[in-house]
């Protein structure tokens, strides 16, 4: 061994010791595991959607541990069941952060559950990764939104239907379940359509309760609205269980996708699993991911997922991909920061990139949203969605809508010097939205 080599070796050992001691200094000193929390309902109404995401996080943790863990430690998922009960979400979040001492939490589905845990994450200064498409109008210091904002799902879908390829739609039915996500989304869409020159009488907005099952009147109204001699489409923000009877009624009343296409923002592979999809062929869904997307990354993921669950029929869907992206970004941020400390991770994660499953890149933006491609898919008779349109490039998520008058000039930016979720670029002040504070 030459002199130089010996010096290099010594340096290497020294470096290893330094890194090791650095990693060992934080709170985990006594322990060699890093815990993360999983806050998804495993019982109650939302179990239908959220159980899969719990499995996804467990799958990701498993994969990460096979790769040697994180910072040389083993990852461990702590699973709790908030039982589709919104106040219980806040309780369970508190338990995860203060009792189990988790480094980050992956969870929530409905907007109301997210709103209910926000104060807890702020107070205890922890991190939440929220993987579901939502209504926007929010940007919090402790939350990362890896699902779509309205400009990454609703607006492109409407653009597609307006285009010649999508059928040059002139009349619009905005049909939704009566709660915050459809109401806000429809408010944005209505303003967008009016801006695009659609007449007020060519827009019909209707809401139904959660779990609504008797769609006869509504579908008949859609049929009547669609017989005004102009091409009509339905934009559906109908959520959860109500979709199945809605589509069944559409099929039975003989409304085919060629006459009046329905584009849905909450119907994915998982929801279609409970349906006979033959009469629905041609209806649309807009997402940022479909299981049928043909990329090597996706093929590998679907294969690994099926192997992990041991079920050939298990589907993958958009919120799953959002969970994967959120997890990978967090792992990268922790590796970059060299610690799981909240403030360090919050700083390190902005600007990080990770490949998504559709052949592109997801980048964490300063407003805590990510860049996503947009896909419009048509329902096929096997319950899968085939892409008929996709955006040219990734669309950056927009926390505050460009189409609402009250959001004019409002930005979210969690980097210095602004560091604010609701920043008025005109007056250069922070605040204004009740839910937000620096």
């Amino acid at each position, binding site marked *: 061994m030459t002199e130089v080599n010996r010096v290099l070796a010594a340096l290497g050992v020294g470096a290893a010791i330094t890194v090791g001691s650095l990693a060992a200094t934080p709170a985990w000193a006594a322990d060699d595991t890093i815990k993360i929390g999983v806050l998804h309902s495993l*019982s109650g109404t939302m179990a239908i959607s959220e159980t899969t995401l719990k499995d996804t996080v467990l799958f990701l943790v498993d994969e990460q541990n096979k790769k040697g863990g994180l910072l040389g430690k083993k990852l461990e998922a702590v699973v709790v069941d908030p039982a589709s009960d919104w106040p219980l979400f806040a309780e369970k979040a508190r338990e995860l952060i203060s009792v189990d001492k988790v480094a980050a939490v992956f969870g929530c589905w409905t907007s109301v559950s997210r709103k209910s845990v926000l104060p807890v994450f702020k107070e205890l200064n922890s991190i939440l990764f929220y993987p579901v498409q939502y209504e926007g109008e929010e940007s919090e210091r402790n939350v990362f939104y890896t699902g779509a904002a309205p400009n990454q799902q609703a607006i492109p879908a409407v653009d597609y239907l307006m285009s010649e390829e999508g059928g040059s739609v002139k009349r619009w039915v905005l049909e939704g379940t009566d709660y915050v996500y459809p109401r806000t989304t429809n408010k944005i869409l209505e303003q967008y359509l009016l801006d695009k020159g659609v007449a007020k009488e060519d827009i019909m907005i209707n809401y139904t309760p959660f779990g609504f099952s008797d769609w006869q009147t509504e579908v008949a109204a859609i049929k009547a609205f669609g017989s005004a001699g102009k091409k009509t489409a339905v934009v559906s923000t109908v959520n959860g269980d109500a979709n199945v009877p809605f589509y069944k009624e559409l099929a039975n009343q003989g409304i085919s996708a060629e006459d009046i296409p329905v584009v849905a923002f909450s119907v994915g592979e998982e929801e279609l699993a409970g349906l006979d999809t033959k*009469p629905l062929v*041609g209806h649309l869904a807009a997402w940022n991911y479909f299981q049928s997307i043909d990329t090597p990354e996706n093929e590998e993921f679907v294969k690994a997922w099926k192997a992990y669950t041991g079920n050939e029929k298990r589907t993958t869907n958009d919120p799953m991909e959002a969970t994967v992206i959120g997890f990978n970004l967090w792992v990268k941020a922790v590796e970059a920061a060299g610690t799981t400390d909240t403030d360090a991770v919050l700083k390190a994660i902005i600007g990080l990139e990770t490949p998504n499953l559709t052949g592109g890149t997801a980048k964490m933006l300063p407003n805590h949203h990510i860049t996503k491609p947009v896909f419009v898919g048509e329902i096929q008779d096997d319950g899968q969605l085939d892409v008929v349109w996709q955006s040219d490039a990734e669309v950056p998520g927009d926390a505050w809508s460009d189409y609402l008058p009250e959001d004019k000039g409002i930005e979210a930016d969690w980097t210095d010097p602004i560091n604010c979720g609701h920043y008025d670029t005109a007056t250069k002040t922070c605040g204004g939205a009740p839910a937000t504070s620096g």
Partner: protein
Amino acid sequence: MTAPRLLQLLALLLGLLLAAPAQAQTPDLPTLVNALSQGSFADKGDAVAALAATGDEHVATILGALGEGNLYARKSDGRVLLKSGDTYLDPLTNEPVEVTDTEKVRVNNSLRGKIRTAIGQLTLLSADRATRLSAAQSVLKNGDPETLELLTAALEKENDPQIKATMEAARAVITLKSDASLEDKQAAVATIAARNDRDAQAMLQAALGSAPDELKPVIESGIDTISRNLAVWDVAQNVWYGVSLSSVLLLAAIGLAITFGVMGVINMAHGEMVMLGAYTTFVVQEVIRQNFPGLFDYSLGIALPLAFLVTALVGIAIERGIIRWLYGRPLETLLATWGVSLILQQAVRTIFGPTNRQVGNPSWMQGAFDLGGLSITWNRFWIVIFAIAVFFALLAILNHTALGLQMRAVTQNRRMASAMGIRTPFVDAMTFGLGSGIAGMAGVALSQIDNVSPNLGQGYIIDSFMVVVFGGVGNLWGTLVGALTLGIANKFLEPYAGAVLAKILILVFIILFIQRRPRGLFALKGRAVEA
């Protein structure tokens, strides 16, 4: 002319004869077919049009397969193949082709429309009546001026009155788009207006925009006539929707009318009995799908008695295990049955998974039929019939069987009935079993229109209590009238107030009503009630 020369000429002629059709199809037909898998959806649309223009006999089949998603392309060279079962066929020769790497030729809605138009044009002269009818309908929908000649030719040969009417309407639509004389156009408007339905209204609306000024009043009066006619049918349609909602309410509530109405047990697990019935249907259908696919249309008939048995047994077990210890303590019963309902839900979630299960509709429960201006869906129609049947069967059991007599006796005066030698605990168990079993049968029906998920029952429990309380506790007729009133009122409010407000209004109405008549519509009278 010598013989060899003659032969030569003959051969040449023969060759020409053979070559003529070959020139018209073989050089470009396979290319045209293969073009279906290439380029954007617009390119594919052009390929469809080009293929349809050849008029080749295979084209209708190929386009049909494309529309239904049975056309595949070989990944290596884009050769288009027809999938039939597990084998791939050459679409022109129908000979099997060995391939390994294929992908489906994708279509979208606008392309599907083009395909249907092309098929419509190709099959307008088909010998099969159904094919011809759907062809005429697609030509009517599309109203493409280029089909006019073909349509006129087809009209001359057509004898079937329904197809003829459709074709005439189609010709009228095309006439309105063309530069025909005013008289012709007026006649065309009259032809369309005579159809008197929503589609006709849509066609006239569409024509109104581009119509010349002289024609506008005629079209407008046509639209007016149709709207007035439709308004009358709309009322009838609302009544039907109301009856249909009532039948669902009745089915969900009628079991509760027994357990709560007759026995006075506040049974929060009632909805879960409905859910168990729906899951029984799912299991029956799964077994049928795997073992006897031919029996699928009978699956509901098989599921009904099984659902009754399963839920009746579960009901009896609940009554014997829990409820009988709690008679006379309504609050504890409420909490205990609430607990039971959570246990049942979670048990089903653990066994069958949290996601929806697919329960198929037998062929006789799919689609809709027209009755005058009414459009009635088959599944709703059969559920109404089923609800009526269940109601009268239950009425017969209560009024004309020994068990029914004992049930009524126990309800009216438990101690006296016991003194007369009736085994009241046995009757209690049977009554609870009957109520639960009927809820299970309701579940079979509801599986046809709702989600089959662990939460199925929760959606119905409040409605059921509403109906029973409103109708009058302990009276089956009250339940029937209650369900009808609430269902129809709800459906009449919905178009004006929206689904959310309609529901709220109904609830407010019931609260006010109960203030006036605490015992509901049909109150039981007699000393037993006062006790």
